[in-house]
């Protein structure tokens, strides 16, 4: 750790090209074999001079140094990673970070951080994304210079959109004179972060090891401060590989930083509006960062006796809580006179409908005169190019502060505002809301029964069968996938009351997120003994099927249930819509969107990579036993996959 001492920075020896030894040819080889190993470095056999030709400006090279004797830069980089408590480095190997990788596995002995091998950088970074949402802290992903960064780009984008922390390290051979001919020139850049700068929170490309240390710690600090996001740090190959000589390097201590909280005056104003409201509604966006998140949202709702709509960007409120009115989302928002939006990432979309018709007509959901309060930091970290920020939407009060950190202060302010008379009115309102929510499950079960015995298997049946087995683990599970393509059945049928029971969406919508982020979540869950279940789209899994090999190789327990509707079904519906709009070819929307003919055999695919698998299952009666067998494998600490031939939604 840092001593506060400013280090001297003497010249680091340069690597010397092997070209000199190659030019020496057999004479040098013969000379080397007659000398002892210890004398190799000191030997300087004569080297025939390279003939000087006109225009040749290179001096003949001395013989290369073949070994190092002490600590190398990569070792120091590992010290930096350890100082930040980084448990894993996820990576597809690449030569631009060979030095750091060797340091991880030999100097660091492949422990905290442990090197997790992935078969594509998109898998690496998506794993980091999912890991952070469950572990509550980032890991490091390590990507090959330029090409690895490009492979990782979509996953970095999803991570950025979802405001999840991650340290993305990229290799680079910064000095031109150090690049081998050919591939190292294609895999290096002066400013590699340009590739991803639009969707990382910060980036750094250090000029020396001390710079690297300070940059990495700053990167971690920024990544984990609300609004969170991935950061991109270049690890120069020379810095990794060179021996550290005569340098006094130190690693600054990470600041213990609090999350930003809302201004007390603004929170008091919000409290007044909410307590005075006849029908306040809370819309919970990306609120939850820790176990406190759902508890605070529930406490807020109970203090106000207000309905909560969970936007499902994270697990923001227990789904069976009587004040959780997500089942009647539109009706609840329409009836509100005050809306409190917590960490919304698309406030316009929360308060308006936008129909996918010609002209994209839009209608407000809220009534005229409804007051809107926004609490969060989500929309304070935006960049101009990518239009993630959605439409600018008016609010009567905007409070800048991390929602989870600000909620205790808001709750206190509300409690101060509530008079005994007002408390009676709130209790009456709360009672009505509870009576309404008592009828939700009956309607849910009636809908779930609709295609109960159908083949292909209904999504309700699949989710109900999984839950039947999962409920025996006492809530120690994570649903790591999104549920909108499954008609939200897990949120409606399962019992979710812990912050890790679901981890929300990618937000960026880059397909391929689910299978890899799920494995990252499973990696985080491993130490807790939790079951991770991914209800995974077939198209998503085919974007990164190599994730299955990583799961098997590293023995990461996870249950993949493939929602195999044999299509990029969203796109099939889009094409259908346009064909109907144009009044032609309405029976041709399958062209370019379906994944059939041949049908992919996901069970065989998984088995080929060492994953226990069953399927394809198209008889719903076979599902229960299949899930039982698969969960036994997962509980033993290994991955499993079930291929379910499914209804479209």
């Amino acid at each position, binding site marked *: 750790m840092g001593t506060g001492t400013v280090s001297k920075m003497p010249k680091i020896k340069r690597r010397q090209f092997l070209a000199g030894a190659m030019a020496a040819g057999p004479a040098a080889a013969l000379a080397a074999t007659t000398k002892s190993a210890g004398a190799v470095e000191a030997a300087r056999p004569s080297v025939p001079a390279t003939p000087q030709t006109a225009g040749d400006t290179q001096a003949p090279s001395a013989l290369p140094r073949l070994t190092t004797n002490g600590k190398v830069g990569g070792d120091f980089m590992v010290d930096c990673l350890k100082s930040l408590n980084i448990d894993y480095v996820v990576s597809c190997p690449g030569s631009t970070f060979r030095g750091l990788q060797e340091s991880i596995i030999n100097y660091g002995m492949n422990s905290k951080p442990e090197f997790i091998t992935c078969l594509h950088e998109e898998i690496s970074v998506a794993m980091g994304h999912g890991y952070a949402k469950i572990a509550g802290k980032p890991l490091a992903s390590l990507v090959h210079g330029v090409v690895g960064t490009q492979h990782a780009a979509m996953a970095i984008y999803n991570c950025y959109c979802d405001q999840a922390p991650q340290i993305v390290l990229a290799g680079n051979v910064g000095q031109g004179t150090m690049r081998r001919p050919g591939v190292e020139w294609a895999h290096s850049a002066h400013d590699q972060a340009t590739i991803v700068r639009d969707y990382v929170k910060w980036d750094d490309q250090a000029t020396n090891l001390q710079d690297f240390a300070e940059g990495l710690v700053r990167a971690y600090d920024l990544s984990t401060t609300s609004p969170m996001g991935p950061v991109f740090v270049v690890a120069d190959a020379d810095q990794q590989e060179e021996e550290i000589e005569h340098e006094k390097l130190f690693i600054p201590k990470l600041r213990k930083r609090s999350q930003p909280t809302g201004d007390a005056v603004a929170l008091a104003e919000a409290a007044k509006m909410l307590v005075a409201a006849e029908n306040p509604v809370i819309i919970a966006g990306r609120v939850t960062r820790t176990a406190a998140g759902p508890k605070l949202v529930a406490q807020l709702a109970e203090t106000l006796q207000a309905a909560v709509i969970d936007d499902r960007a994270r697990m923001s409120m227990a789904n069976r809580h009587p004040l959780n009115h997500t089942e009647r989302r539109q009706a609840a928002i329409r009836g509100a006179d005050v809306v409190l939006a917590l960490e919304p990432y698309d406030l316009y979309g929360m308060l308006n409908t936008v*129909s*996918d*018709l010609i002209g994209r007509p839009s209608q407000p959901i809220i009534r005229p005169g409804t007051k809107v309060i926004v609490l969060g930091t989500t929309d304070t970290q935006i960049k101009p190019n990518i239009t993630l920020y959605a439409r600018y939407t008016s609010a009567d009060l905007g409070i800048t502060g991390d929602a989870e950190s600000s909620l205790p202060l808001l709750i206190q302010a509300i409690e101060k505002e509530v008079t005994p008379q007002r408390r009676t009115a709130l209790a009456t309102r709360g009672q009505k809301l509870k009576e309404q929510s008592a009828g939700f499950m009956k309607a849910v*079960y*009636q*809908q*779930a*029964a*609709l*295609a*109960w*015995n*159908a083949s*292909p298997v*209904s*999504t*309700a049946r699949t989710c*109900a*069968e999984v*839950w*039947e087995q999962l409920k025996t683990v006492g809530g120690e599970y994570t649903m790591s996938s999104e549920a*909108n*393509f499954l*008609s*939200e059945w897990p949120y409606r049928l399962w019992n979710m009351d812990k912050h890790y029971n679901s981890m929300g969406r990618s937000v960026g919508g880059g397909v391929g997120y689910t299978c890899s982020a799920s494995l990252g979540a499973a990696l985080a869950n491993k130490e807790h003994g939790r079951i991770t279940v991914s209800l995974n789209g077939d198209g998503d899994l085919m974007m990164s099927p190599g994730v299955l090999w990583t799961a098997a190789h590293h023995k990461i327990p996870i249950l993949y249930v493939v929602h195999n509707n044999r299509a990029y*079904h969203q796109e*099939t*519906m889009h094409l*259908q*819509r346009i064909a*109907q*709009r144009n*009044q*032609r070819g*309405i*029976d041709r*929307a399958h062209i370019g969107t379906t994944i059939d003919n041949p049908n992919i055999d996901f069970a065989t695919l998984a088995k080929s990579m060492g994953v226990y698998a069953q399927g394809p299952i198209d008889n719903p009666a076979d599902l229960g036993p299949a899930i039982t067998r698969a969960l036994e494998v997962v509980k033993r600490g290994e991955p499993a996959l079930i291929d379910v031939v499914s*209804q*479209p*939604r």
Partner: protein
Amino acid sequence: MSRIVWMLGVGVLSGVVGLSAALAQNAPSGNVANGKKLYETVGCFQCHGYVGQGGAAGPKLIDPTPYPAFIVQLRAPRQVMPPYTERVLTDQQVADIYAHVKTFPMPPDPASITILK
């Protein structure tokens, strides 16, 4: 301006008359087998499911509305359902689809399903 308003009024009136005629119609006889084929090729199942169970993308069709309302919704749908105009689906084809939709089985009573408790 008054001529335009008059023309618009005639257009609306024609539409209303046409719709009224449709509303007055009983379901014509339809071919179930062809209706199933159409249901699966022209995209109905994408949103409504193979057995009309519905979901997040579209409402259920099990135990459908009477035919006159069915064809009105098909031709000039409310909300975001894309339209199936006469150019792409004839009245007979609509009748075939309706005949198939009428065959969707009623669901079991959820109270009889052990795991739905």
